[in-house]
């Protein structure tokens, strides 16, 4: 039942919203993983980022797509929690807060299990939507997963335009065509901080390809 609802939601609302109301201009579409397990890392500006990433893949992979998102934000309201857990198939993750970190639980446990099952993780390593069209420093979770699963490809993506569609704090949706740049897999470099940095640089390099659309 939930699976049916999920497929109906994406066919009737999710995809028409992304593909018709907004519109995508994807560069290097063939660079996307064809199957799981894989990790896709992208910049984050808007709640619609997840919708765009999920629309990049064929419908047959829908059941495999697992956006990783903040538990403290998405689980605080029961309706939102139901939607994100069932319709977007989200993996909730505890954002570590200084002093509040629960040292017994591994926040990446569910993500690791999903990779073992062959899912495609969609991760925003900035950890927050942040300032419109500006990249924040990447967090280290993906590097931990890569260390554990060195054979799982990590694909960088840069999206431009979503900050204009629905910036933080706005509810009106303004249609703008979204540019999506898919990069080459980021190779494991032996240790975590260097990998996180390589991942961030890969997204920055994709950003440099993006057309310069002045924004003030």
């Amino acid at each position, binding site marked *: 039942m939930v699976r049916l609802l999920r497929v109906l939601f994406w066919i009737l609302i999710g995809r028409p919203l992304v593909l018709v109301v907004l519109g995508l*201009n994807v560069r290097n579409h063939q660079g996307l993983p064809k199957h799981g397990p894989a990790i896709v890392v992208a910049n984050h500006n808007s709640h619609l980022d997840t919708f765009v990433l999920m629309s990049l893949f064929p419908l047959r992979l829908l059941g495999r797509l697992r956006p990783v998102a903040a538990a403290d934000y998405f689980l605080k309201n029961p309706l939102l929690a139901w939607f994100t857990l069932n319709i977007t198939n989200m993996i909730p993750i505890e954002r570590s807060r200084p002093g509040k970190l629960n040292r017994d639980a591994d926040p990446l446990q569910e993500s690791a299990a999903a990779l073992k099952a062959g899912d495609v993780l969609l991760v925003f390593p900035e950890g927050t939507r942040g300032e419109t069209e500006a990249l924040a420093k990447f967090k280290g979770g993906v590097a931990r997963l890569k260390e554990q699963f060195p054979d799982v490809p990590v694909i960088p993506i840069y999206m431009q335009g979503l900050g*204009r569609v629905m910036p933080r704090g706005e509810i009106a949706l*303004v249609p*703008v065509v979204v540019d999506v740049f898919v990069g080459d897999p980021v190779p494991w470099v032996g240790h975590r901080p260097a990998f996180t940095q390589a991942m961030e640089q890969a997204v920055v390099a994709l950003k440099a390809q993006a057309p310069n*659309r002045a*924004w*003030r």
Partner: protein
Amino acid sequence: MSNLPIIDLDMAPNVAIAIIAIYVLLVVASLFTWSLAKRRPERDYTELRQRVRTWWVIVTLFAVAIALKPIFAISLLGFVSFLAFKEYITLIPTRRADHRVLFLAYLTIPIQYYWVADGWYGMFIVFIPVYAFLLLPARMVLIGETDGFIRAAGTLHWGLMTTVFSLSHTAFLLALPQSGNPVAGGDGLLLYLLLLTQLNDVAQYVWGKSFGKHKVVPKVSPKKTVEGLFGGIATTAVVAVIAAPFLTPLTRWEALAAGLLIGAAGFIGDISVSAVKRDLGIKDSGNILPGHGGILDRVDSLTFTAPLFFHFVYYLHY
């Protein structure tokens, strides 16, 4: 609302014949590009063949919309305005402070096409040039961001005027009373305008490719030549005179004038969008139409020909 089915039972035979003729043209174009690719396998004709294939889709969408009740064709044209305006907004720099103004600007599209469907000419003709022109800057100034105000208000209005106001004239042809064009009605006028505008683009391209030597506006569009321009206008004028008795109420001399008007205005519309793209430093306005680029690249000429042709016919026959 009438209780007839959605099929437009009043479709004039001339309109049906014109649609069949356009399909014959498409078959010829497909065969031509196919044989070209066969005869010269060393050259890449992918873009040309994609372009023809996209034409099949566009023509079929319009043929179906015209065969249904006018509201379907009006909605389709409204959707074209939406896509064109969206491309324009994507390409131009906008201000963070104007987020809600842009949302309001999008709202003018369904409203403008509602006036068309309602046949309310007085409102249709002033809504964007007067009300949107005053209200959007009013919203902007109340938000209070003065940095870049005049540029933001100016670029936004230019986009609404071209992609919404101008293009909606195509749809208002369908709302004109049938009595003004007994041979083919609004459908006939719309087909006549679309056919001549697109034919003019192709004719200017072909004449330019074959005989082009002297550049017209090298700074805006280096490939446009005097030979292409005049060859295209002449071709359009000839077809305008031939097609007029089947699709329009225009006399022979009026049709000649309409053909010259569409030929010249189409050229200006084309290079205006080129100038916008050059100003912004981009090549295509988008990628929605394989082989053509964006919607703006396809309707560029129409933004100029639609209002001019509409008022030409409206003044003479309505």
